[in-house]
């Protein structure tokens, strides 16, 4: 039991911090948000190929660093702080996590090394409930054919759907209680990607319709990949980790909102004093710090549990409960801090030009991703009270 960061973890965090401070400036974020992909491909290549961020949580045997949740959480925190525009969340935090937890050995061997090497961008539908992917699966149906499967349905919110190479598809299969997991090529016939114009432009979402998309056994790109032995526990665990990585990002948003506010109120004078010298302003910044540091404890703690804990059904259920709680807390903390940042910036707080609005819009969008605080707390309460 030791809660200090290891030397390697400190290195990873500091490298992410300085890289992102450099490439993910306010101007860069605004430029990336306007790009059809929603990010600067060169930045993505640098972080995936040069810096190796995509390989961090991939097992060593599959070409990764063999690290895990604590390290990804540190990257995600910095990504959130600097509003990194890149398919990192979709490819690494959602897809690779899911493949690692749920897929067959063959699929893992085929997909994870390519992800680790930064050669493959993979995405998956982002649910908006407290369920573990079953909400996303509910809208897609897989029918067995002579040589494989056909997929039909619609996935409402797919991050980086326009630019990804592959799409993971959760689908219902008649007669099976667990949803099935497929990977399909995004340029396969029958796939229609419609980009959504969202207020939060720092993470591009698409709606993807699947009309008779074929996943043929033995085909190169499109196939069913769930491992029947692992999928039940794996989808719980991978959804928990997805919530954790999202929470880490929200932690970064909240921290940046506080930092921006402390800096602005130190400069801005009213009634002959820096605004930050007024006690009411100080107390509100202090309240933000309390919530942020507590959230950080929670995020780091849950990541340590993920790294230390048993990954059986019991361990996954406990992790799921803790990550549900932490995502609920993170969503509320990020929104609270963005709201306070706007308020304490005064008039410029609600302008397009200053940055608090970017975090504010992201916090509101993320409120629903993978379940609202209300839904997640109801899930935790069910576990505690029933």
């Amino acid at each position: 039991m030791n809660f200090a960061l290891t030397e390697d973890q400190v290195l990873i965090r500091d490298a992410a911090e300085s890289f992102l401070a450099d490439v993910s400036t306010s101007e860069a974020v605004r430029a990336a948000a306007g790009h059809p992909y929603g990010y600067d491909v060169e930045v993505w290549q640098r972080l995936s190929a040069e810096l190796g961020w995509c390989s961090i949580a991939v097992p060593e045997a599959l070409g990764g660093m063999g690290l895990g949740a604590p390290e990804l959480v540190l990257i995600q925190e910095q990504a959130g702080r600097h509003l990194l525009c890149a398919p990192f969340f979709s490819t690494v935090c959602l897809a690779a996590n899911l493949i690692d937890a749920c897929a067959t050995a063959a699929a893992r061997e085929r997909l994870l090394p390519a992800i680790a090497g930064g050669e493959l961008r993979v995405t998956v539908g982002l649910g908006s409930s407290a369920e573990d992917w079953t909400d996303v699966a509910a809208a897609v149906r897989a029918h067995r054919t002579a040589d494989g499967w056909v997929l039909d349905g619609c996935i409402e919110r797919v991050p980086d759907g326009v630019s990804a190479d592959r799409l993971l598809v959760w689908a219902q299969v008649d007669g099976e209680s667990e949803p099935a997991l497929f990977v399909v090529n995004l340029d396969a016939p029958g796939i229609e990607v419609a980009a959504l114009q969202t207020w939060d432009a720092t993470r591009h979402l698409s709606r993807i319709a699947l009309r008779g998309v074929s996943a043929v056994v033995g085909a190169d790109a499109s196939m069913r990949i769930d491992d029947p032995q692992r999928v039940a526990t794996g989808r719980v665990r991978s959804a928990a980790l997805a919530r954790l990585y999202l929470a880490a990002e929200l932690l970064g948003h909240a921290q940046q909102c506080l930092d921006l506010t402390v800096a602005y109120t130190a400069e801005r004078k009213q009634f002959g004093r820096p605004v930050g010298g007024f006690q009411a302003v100080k107390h509100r910044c202090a309240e933000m710090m309390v919530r942020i540091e507590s959230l950080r404890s929670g995020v780091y703690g849950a990541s340590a549990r993920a790294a230390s804990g048993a990954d059986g059904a019991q361990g996954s259920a406990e992790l799921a409960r803790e990550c549900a709680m932490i995502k609920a807390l993170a969503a509320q903390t990020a929104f609270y801090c963005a709201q306070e940042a706007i308020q304490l910036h005064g008039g410029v707080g609600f302008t397009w030009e200053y940055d608090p609005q970017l975090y504010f819009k992201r916090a509101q969008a993320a409120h629903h991703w993978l379940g609202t605080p209300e839904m997640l707390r109801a899930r935790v309460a069910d576990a505690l009270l029933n």
Partner: protein
Amino acid sequence: MRLDETPEDQAFRAEVAQWMQEHLNGRFAALKHRGGPGDEEADPALRKDWERELAAGGWTCVGWPQSCGGRGLSIERQVIFHEEYARAGGPGRMGHIGEGLIGPALIEFGSPAQKQRFLPRIVDGTEFWAQGYSEPGAGSDLANVQTRCWQEPDGSWRVQGQKIWTSLAHESDWIFVIARSEPGSKGSKGLSFLLLKLDQPGIEIRPIRQLGGGSEFNEVFFDGAVAEADHIVGAPGEGWKVAMGLLQIERGVSTLGQQMHFAYELDLVIQAARRSGRGDDPAIRARIAEAWGGLQVMRYNALRMLSPSEGGGLQLGREALIYKYYWSNWHRDLGKLAMDVLGPDADVISDDPAIRPLQQLFFFSRADTIYAGTNEIQLNIIAERGLGMPREPRPAA
């Protein structure tokens, strides 16, 4: 304490409702529920026509004395008018700065010539006004005015400096400005209150883009802009008195009837909750009930604020102090509730009339707790004037 209305009041209410039903129609139907805060850029040309339609019906400046071209309505009748106007979906008033701010200021502080020149064109909807109070370096510290003015030998005034948060400056004809006429003076001393035509070489207007994408606020730059010699209100150096009188007005009657618009927004939220299924979530239900309760309270807040006090006269006392803080925070919370009720659809930019106004509400209501006295300034005022607590220590200037 009575809520029931006299038969005469009821008849008046019906008259307003009927007029609105007959006139907010045809080409004006597109304006229903449009042009409020956050939506002030909606079709300004048509809304100016609507102002003239209102004027033709005698429904502008209803609270002004008849001698000034108004209807001379009692407070109760003004409440009824504003409520029925909003209930019918009457659009945000292009004329509200003229009617609600500078007009009443001119009635109280203006010269006879100023009244004669300006009031009729406010009443008939032919001239529109913008306000020039805030400055970039001042913010809540309103009296920290850096914009300068001086008098030329021909008696005209020149203005040099910058104002900010000027709504609809690009759609207005005139602007009133408070500027420092006594060099070296500090705070509220040595300021003058001037009226300037906006369409002149010395004035440049730059829109400020807000977080929701709109630009109804502006920066206005003055580079030797001219005000005519007799377009100073009050004595030179005594502009603060005029400005403060005008802010009192802003916090008073001019926000009336907004509850009806808020009620319309709450109804949109309730409809969205039914549609999205989030209306089944007990936490969302509780927040909707709370919002509804807050709206009842807000109306009673307004009625208390506008009732004659025990000693006679308007009771713009303790109740008035809390009014702005209450409604602006309620409204901001409603914006968040609206987004949470819409669910993930809230994040997608939409033209759907069931979604767009709620998104605008969410974004624009962020400004509600900042403009016209931030939350923090409101709480200072409430503590100091409402509760008699010690004033903030101010360092020697």
